[in-house]
């Protein structure tokens, strides 16, 4: 009996001839191994290395050429980096980093390759089956037109007056993209949803909601787009996932009930936690982001988590952490994967319920919105009080006896889209910043009420116009006279830092970016 699946990515140049030798010899290659021939080990991105795990593979071997013998030069180095990062991700997910192995062989080393494959297969069998159950296949809807009609009706889209206010506030349109919310709405109403150009626009929208805020007919555009995306999902319409779909794969993997993450393993002893506490802290996906983007952007979004817990500790709150915390599902929901979003939401609901806690504190605005708005809207009620960390800080600081070492710099704020929609979502961060006593607070040209976003949502549809939008945003931040750009969401930070990597504009775009929690944690003290 053999129900293990091990994927072998095998480079054509060095090791493939060795593999052929083994085949010619009818050598005893473990039958669990399914070989995929590839042009270069360095081209197997983290997304591709991870994909088999999402689909239920028990192990993945990446086999390339020894250093110095790569036909393309950098293959071995890239393969090393990708393997290391993906192993880090596998560890956080609780799948075990040993499930991925990298090796290099020259064409003549057939025996070496064989013993590597045998050794790896026996290690995987010893580790046991993967806890991941492959996600359900997207089901194509039988009646696309009827589903679209429903989405149109539910979100008030029929009442569009064609006034154009949405287009004149849409950050994508303003960045020069040939994109118009009302034209998109009109095409869907007129039944053109199956046209590729229409579908492309459906995946491009940032779901930032700026259009809806202006719309005199209360067309709920972001929610409409979300519906349409989940309708399109089953049709095979390219969902424009960025980074090879890695982030969606990651989240879908967490939707597997058997997965027991270990994504708190990195947490340091600088912070105090208590498994029996009545207050739970929900951290989100930052640890994965830091590994995935670490090499390129050098982001450190986990700092937002440690800083948040430090602030709770400062106020004598020692929170519990869910040992096998999962993603909240925000990005799956907004990229059209409702089924896996619901799977995640139910698993979270169960975990929250059995945690014994009474309150959940959330520092990421996306997680906050998802738990407090989108779960209940999908019939998933969380019986715990859900609190945004920023609210809690403001409430505690307002009690008094707490002071801040004056910040002294000139700062500006980038509103996260999922915070801006809250009733006090614009006011709250500004109030907190004022408490930090910067020498001045400058609003960006399109700040506050008309605030543009960071240029990406749910890891889909990032293109040249997103970049243009981000570049404009940073230019506005600099033009405001600020020397520090404060954000309130880990993703704003990632997308902004990404834009700063622009090889042509690079130095002109460099600006210090920091999360609000980092500023608070550094300066807060008891009077």
């Amino acid at each position, binding site marked *: 009996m053999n129900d293990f699946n091990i994927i072998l990515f095998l480079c054509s140049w060095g090791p493939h001839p060795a593999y052929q030798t083994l085949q010619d010899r009818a050598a005893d290659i473990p039958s669990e191994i399914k070989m995929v021939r590839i042009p270069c080990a360095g081209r197997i991105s983290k997304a591709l290395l991870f994909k088999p795990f999402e689909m239920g593979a028990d192990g993945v071997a990446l086999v390339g050429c020894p250093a110095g013998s790569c036909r393309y030069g950098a293959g071995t180095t890239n393969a090393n980096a990708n393997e290391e990062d993906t192993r880090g991700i596998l560890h956080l997910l609780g799948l075990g980093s040993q499930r991925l192995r990298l090796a290099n062989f020259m064409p003549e080393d057939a025996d070496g390759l064989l013993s590597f494959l045998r050794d790896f297969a026996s290690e995987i069998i010893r580790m046991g089956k993967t806890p991941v159950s492959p996600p359900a296949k997207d089901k194509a809807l039988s009646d696309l037109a009827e589903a679209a009609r429903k989405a149109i009706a539910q979100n008030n889209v029929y009442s569009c007056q064609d006034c154009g206010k949405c287009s004149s506030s849409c950050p994508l349109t303003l960045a020069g993209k040939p994109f118009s919310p009302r034209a998109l709405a009109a095409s869907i109403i007129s039944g053109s949803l199956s046209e590729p150009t229409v579908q492309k626009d459906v995946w491009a929208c940032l779901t930032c909601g700026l259009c809806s805020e202006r719309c005199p007919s209360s067309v709920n555009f972001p929610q409409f787009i979300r519906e349409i995306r989940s309708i399109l999902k089953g049709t095979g319409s390219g969902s424009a996932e960025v980074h090879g779909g890695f982030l969606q794969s990651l989240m879908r993997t967490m939707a597997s009930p058997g997965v027991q993450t270990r994504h708190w393993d990195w947490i340091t002893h600088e912070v105090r936690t208590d498994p029996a506490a009545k207050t739970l802290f929900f951290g989100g996906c930052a640890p994965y982001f830091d590994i995935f983007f670490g090499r390129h952007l050098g982001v450190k979004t986990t700092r937002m988590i440690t800083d948040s817990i*430090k602030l709770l500790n*400062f106020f004598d709150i020692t929170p519990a952490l869910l040992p096998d915390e999962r993603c909240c599902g925000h990005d799956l929901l907004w990229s059209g994967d409702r089924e896996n979003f619901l799977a995640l939401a139910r698993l979270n609901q169960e975990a929250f319920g059995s945690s014994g806690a009474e309150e959940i504190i959330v520092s990421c605005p996306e997680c906050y919105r998802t738990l407090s708005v989108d779960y209940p809207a999908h019939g998933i009620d969380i019986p715990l009080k859900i609190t945004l960390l920023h609210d809690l800080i403001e409430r505690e600081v307002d009690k*008094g*006896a707490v002071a801040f070492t004056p910040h002294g710099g000139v700062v500006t704020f980038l509103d996260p889209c999922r915070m801006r929609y809250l009733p006090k979502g614009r006011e709250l961060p500004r109030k907190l910043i004022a408490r930090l006593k910067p020498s001045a607070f400058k609003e960006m040209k399109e700040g506050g009420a008309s605030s543009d976003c960071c240029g990406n949502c749910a890891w889909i549809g990032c293109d040249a116009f997103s970049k243009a939008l981000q570049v404009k945003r940073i230019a506005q931040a600099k033009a405001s006279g600020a020397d520090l750009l404060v954000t309130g969401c880990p993703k704003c930070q990632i997308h902004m830092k990404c834009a700063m990597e622009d090889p042509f504009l690079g130095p002109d775009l460099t600006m210090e970016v920091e999360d609000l929690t980092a500023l608070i944690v*550094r300066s*807060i*003290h*008891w009077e």
Partner: protein
Amino acid sequence: MTQLIKETGRYEIILTGFGGQGIVLAGKILGQAAAIGDNRESTLVQSYGPEARGGACSAQVIISGKAIHYPPVRHPDILACMSQAGFDKYIEQLTAEGTLIIDQDLVQPHGFDREHFSIPSTRMAEELGRKMMANIIMLGFLIAVTNAVSPGSTRNAVSSSVPRGTAEKNIAAFNKGYDYGLAVLKGRQKKATGRAGAEK
């Protein structure tokens, strides 16, 4: 952080300020909370005669587990000052271990070199939109830092003593002072253990 209310603990308290600040009302609430809410004995002596209308005025409250035979306060354990004149007049009478509480914007504790408590009660009341509620904020603060009366009884006494329709606002003011008091105690405790900031 706060000790339990001492069943037999005796507190002699002077609240002082100028006329119009609601000093006597605060004293009355304090005594009423102790007597009705906490089932203890209490007395109130108010002095505002010729000094009323902007002059110094005071409320002298005694709270005790036993019968009180002599209501005036000569050596308070707790002195809460909402005016400079009140401070100047009564500070000499405060016992050696007595607790001094001042409105930090109205009183300069000249010559007083022991640890004491201060709160911007008038400023806080202005921020809440009613300067008149500074007394209730002060009361909340006093109770948090001294624990002379239980906060629950005081909230009840506040609700039943203030003008009709203002109970909710006054409770909010009480809570404001009370929370500030707890925060100050917490801050002192943190500083004492060398953990004043969030980074260490």
